[in-house]
């Protein structure tokens, strides 16, 4: 029982990582209706960008986040018309073509990363990486890593900013309108191509910043992408496809299940537990935890 506070705290920290992996992924699905299988590779490329920028400039990776965001958002903005073209094609199934296209992108990015960055794993150093807070009272104790706490703060900030952007700006109004009904939004003067390009740019930028953070908390390598793609997908499905507000709850739930299983039950069955919970919830509520997904 004395391990419970630690298990819950670790679950929340793990959940924070899942939030930042999944939140922009959910946004892009909600608006563009594309399941981007390259999300893990955007995270990987962002992690490498953070690592190499840090090695060259010796600037803390947390301070590099805005630079990485701008660089990758620009890249996403340029790339989006290609995805739009695939999605708006008249032949075949656009949804399926979107899946195939982004899957192809992910393979290409992974191959290129291994060619250019090599096959070794790296780690991005940060001043936050070494500190931790330790609390002990009675039989209970709690250790909180400062870099993971910074990750939690980042997750809260990103979620807050996205919510504000969607709920309190004209751009957000346009995005929500497009998500609800593309044709009606167009009739109301929303430029779908430009809005989609901005949404994709925001998604790529946030995913790349997430990569910088993961490189600091965990590691950086060309092969890291698929693991994060899977978790992004889990979280978004559990939250309800395209339901942005459900992402934090779904991410925390997965994080806590994983942590409690690691601590109290057999760590070997952690992923099985995650799959089982996901399966059961979808069985009861196919549109996610809050029944608000697509």
């Amino acid at each position, binding site marked *: 029982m004395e391990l419970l506070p630690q298990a819950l705290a670790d679950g929340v920290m793990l959940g924070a990582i899942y939030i930042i992996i999944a939140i922009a992924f959910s946004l892009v699905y909600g608006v563009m209706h594309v399941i981007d299988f390259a999300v893990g590779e955007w995270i990987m490329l962002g992690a490498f960008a953070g690592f190499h920028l840090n090695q060259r400039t010796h600037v803390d990776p947390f301070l590099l986040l805005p630079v990485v965001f701008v660089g990758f958002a620009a890249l996403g903005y340029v790339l989006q018309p290609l995805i739009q073209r695939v999605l708006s094609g008249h032949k075949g199934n656009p949804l399926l073509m979107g899946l195939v296209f982004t899957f192809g992108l992910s393979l290409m990015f992974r191959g290129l990363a291994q060619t250019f960055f090599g096959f070794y794993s790296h780690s991005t150093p940060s001043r936050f990486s070494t500190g931790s807070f330790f609390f002990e009272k009675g039989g209970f104790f709690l250790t909180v890593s400062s870099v993971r706490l910074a990750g939690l703060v980042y997750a809260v900030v990103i979620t807050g900013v996205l919510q504000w952007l969607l709920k309190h700006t004209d751009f957000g109004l346009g995005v929500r309108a497009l998500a609800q009904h593309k044709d009606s939004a167009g009739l109301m003067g929303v430029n779908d191509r430009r809005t989609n390009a901005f949404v994709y740019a925001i998604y790529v930028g946030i995913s790349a910043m997430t990569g910088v953070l993961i490189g600091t908390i965990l590691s950086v390598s060309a092969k890291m992408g698929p693991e994060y793609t899977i978790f992004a997908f889990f979280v978004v499905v559990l939250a309800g496809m395209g339901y942005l507000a459900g992402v934090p709850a779904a991410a925390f739930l997965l994080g806590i299940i994983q942590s409690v299983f690691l601590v109290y039950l057999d*760590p070997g069955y952690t992923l099985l537990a995650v799959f089982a919970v996901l399966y059961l919830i979808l069985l009861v509520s196919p549109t996610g935890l809050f029944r608000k997904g697509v």
Partner: protein
Amino acid sequence: MRRALRWATLVALTVAVPAAGQEAREFFKVGVVAELSGDLATGGNVTKRGYDLWAQAVNEAGGIPVGAKKYPVKLFYADAQSNPSQGAAAAERLITQEHVDFILGPYASGVTIAVAPVVEKYKVPMITGSAESPMIWRQKFLYTFGTVPPVNFTGAAAIQTLAGLSPAPKTAVIFGSNDTFSKATAEAFEGAAKKAGIKVLKFNIVPAGQDLTPLMSAVKGMRPDLVAFGGHDEELIKLVKGMRQIDFAPSAILMHYGVTEPAFVEALKDDANQVFGGAVWTATTRTKSEILWKDAPSYEAAARKAFGVGADYTQAGCSAAGIAFQVALQKVGAPPPLSEAKRAELIKALEAVDVDTFYGKVKFATDGEFYHANVGLAPLTVQIQGGKVAVVGPKKDADAAAQYPMTPWSKR
């Protein structure tokens, strides 16, 4: 008529292509099955480097002497994609389409176990310069050999070294990733710990690649003297980072392969210091050889020249695999291409190999639980000290004293 002609051409090509593959040639065709992409790409590419360096050195020396003539070697790669079934398919492709004379095997034990029945079926000899799981040797494949001793042999030695330190560790938490090699490593650690009188507080096999920091937070509360983990490169880096982040420093952290990989120190910098590992070769191992490289430092220098980084024991084991083939081929005295009968002779010659190399002695067991694994080497316990790999056990091979117990993270 035209259709009949088309069919005739097709049949002629089908018949002619394999025949062409068996044409007399002036070089040995060597198949390489390695994990060049996927989760195990780091180890797979280290393996490839070892094979490449051997091929480069042997070709610079004019090739493998057979009778009065020397035959160069040409490597043909097939990517196992870190996947056992892809590895098996890759080996089959190399054998049936490229008609390779012999195969240099994969990095991972899981992939090797999948490839071994394929080389057995086609009677093509394979030496893996990396795979360490005892499961491979227990199956007694006639055509599969390995230059790295099994992990139940090497992993146990590291625990014995730690048990001899003062104050000796009394408790341990042991876990391994869920793959063939890592599981075998964790089991070897557990068996040796129990034998050495170290109480195992917790033993788990965990899903590969998972963030284990929550588990480490719980383990911290158990206050074990020793944390031992069987895993691969990136998992080891993530684990040490996690332990650093929660300020958890037991008396000793023990890992196995991966600690000696240059990337481990490069990624963790000072945090890599004092981590223990198991190995069978380092750049300072005292060896003497007359084949290709005269000793371990010469090999290390060649590796640095070729790749810009030093070599670990997997890379060295892979180059030694090439040397073992070289020695056996000289004994068989058969020029390329090798017929099935000559490949069977090659197996006999490999079983008789007993040679001193830069890597140490290569001698394959011909019976028992280590059947066809290299039993010529002594296991070493290593520790990262000042960013370099130091041998700390057994005493006769040690070039530094173990730094123990581990300095707390906050005092570094």
